[in-house]
């Protein structure tokens, strides 16, 4: 039964131009920002001291696009649910699939598959483009076989997919595109920006926060603050899972 619902959600997602525009925009910004961030590193690298050169992380530099890309993944995830609330289409969807958990699960599955694939492709493309540009300037670059590189590239793709799922959760809870996206921007950009002002107990959470500890996965040079990046990413995913659980509970109970 869930297979039908998943197929239905896939038809919905692929039949919207906005889906393809969003993905095109993702790869446009991906290649664009990666080129900007890696195209002129020779001068910067030349200015670095010997100690700083040890910390030079070409992989992280090549994947820096995640900062912008996470917002695009957020848009993708949000639209999967909020467009239905905005148009009232959710009533027709629930008339077809009255089991609400099944309907939302199908949306999460479809969005997750698309986001995981898009995340991996984006990270690999950005890595290859970035490293080619860095190497072209005679600056030390990374190869996929280097220690920690594959983990950063693939982990980075998963990080982005997780942000898409966070957006689905927020979209379901708020039922409005603007509210969900604003909250997402608050979580991924504003909270990290104001982190220094928050109390000590909150600092612990930041180890697992998007754009903070959660993003340690993009580094290949060991960071003493985050010795096990996968642990930080795992913690972030747990937090997102909690948001999704809340979304499922609310969606099950609320009138539409």
């Amino acid at each position, binding site marked *: 039964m869930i297979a039908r619902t998943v197929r239905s959600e896939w038809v919905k997602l692929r039949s*919207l131009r906005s889906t393809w525009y969003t993905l095109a925009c993702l790869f446009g910004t991906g290649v664009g920002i990666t080129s900007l961030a890696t195209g002129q590193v020779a001068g910067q690298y030349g200015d670095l001291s010997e100690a700083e050169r040890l910390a030079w992380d070409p992989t992280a530099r090549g994947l820096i696009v995640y900062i912008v890309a996470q917002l695009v993944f957020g848009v993708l995830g949000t639209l999967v649910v909020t467009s239905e609330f905005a148009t009232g289409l959710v009533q027709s969807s629930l008339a*077809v699939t009255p089991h609400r958990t099944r309907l939302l699960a199908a949306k999460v599955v479809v969005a997750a598959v698309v986001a995981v694939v898009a995340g991996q492709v984006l990270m690999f493309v950005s890595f290859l483009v970035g490293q080619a540009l860095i190497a072209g300037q005679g600056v030390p670059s990374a190869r996929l076989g280097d220690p920690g590189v594959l983990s950063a590239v693939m982990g980075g793709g998963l990080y982005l997919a997780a942000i898409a799922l966070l957006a689905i959760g927020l979209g379901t809870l708020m039922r409005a595109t603007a509210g969900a996206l604003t909250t997402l921007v608050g979580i991924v950009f504003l909270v990290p920006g104001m982190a220094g002002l928050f109390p000590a107990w909150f600092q612990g959470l930041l180890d697992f926060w998007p754009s903070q500890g959660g993003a340690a996965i993009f580094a290949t040079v060991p960071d003493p603050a985050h010795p096990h990046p996968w642990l930080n990413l795992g913690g972030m995913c747990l937090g997102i899972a909690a948001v999704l659980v809340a979304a499922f509970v609310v969606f099950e109970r609320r009138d539409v």
Partner: protein
Amino acid sequence: MTRIEVRGLTKRYGHDTAVDDLSFTVEAGQVTGFLGPNGAGKSTTMKMVLGLAAPTSGSVTIGGRRYRDLPVPLTEVGALLDAGAVHPGRRACDHLLALAAGAGLPRRRVGEVLARTGLEPVARRRAGEFSLGMRQRLGIAGALLGDPRVLMFDEPVNGLDPEGIRWIRGLMRSLAAEGRAVLVSSHLMNEMAQTADHLVVIGRGRLIADTSVTEFLNGRGEGAVLVRAEDPAAFALRLTAAGAVVREGTGSAVVVSGLTAEEIGRLAACHGAVLSELTPQRPSLEDAFMELTGDSVEFQGVSA
């Protein structure tokens, strides 16, 4: 025979009671008009039939089962609640294909309902380009996808042009003639007179009437009779003497109530009065409806 059974249905939002202990049955093979002023609770009731809103108490079943428990709901109940409930960026055929896929229906059903609703030529256009009438048709196409035994339409003629209204009337009649149970809501009484066999009238969430259209009309007082006499003043006196109430009509005509057309004819013959017109006025459904729901209208304008 599949039918909708509403039993003791109640929905409260905080202190507001939208639907109040409502019970009625929508039978197969006829069009049931679901009437009430705006805000009477019609849409809320229909949402509860589909499980979109949870009843505070009471139940709705379709063929004895809750909507949620139907194995493939689309093949048993088709509903059009809101014609605007389509994504404007999606092509009509993709919209229907998504619904069909969710119910496990074959792709050819999409073509079939597009044909039945006359949307074939615009199947590949995006719903955002559709007129209101085309969107209503798309919503109806969605309701017909699973070839269901029960159909439910919320204000389907709202905002349609005369041609569209006629098409919808014809469709309702033919769906009922195929043995399906059809529930159509409207706040326009005369619209229902043209389409419905049975009426369920509600006001402020409460049941006001549950009756056939014919009974509904017959039960609402005597009809008046329009009379045009050669000497209206003199004949009016005779009528009043016979116990009728006479009001002035347009021109030289008078509107008589309290006597049937036959009695008035006899009276005229008896007194040798010459009549040029004697027309029984059908009690208007609208009047009957207003009389019934008068005190249940939520917001009433003050008449000048």
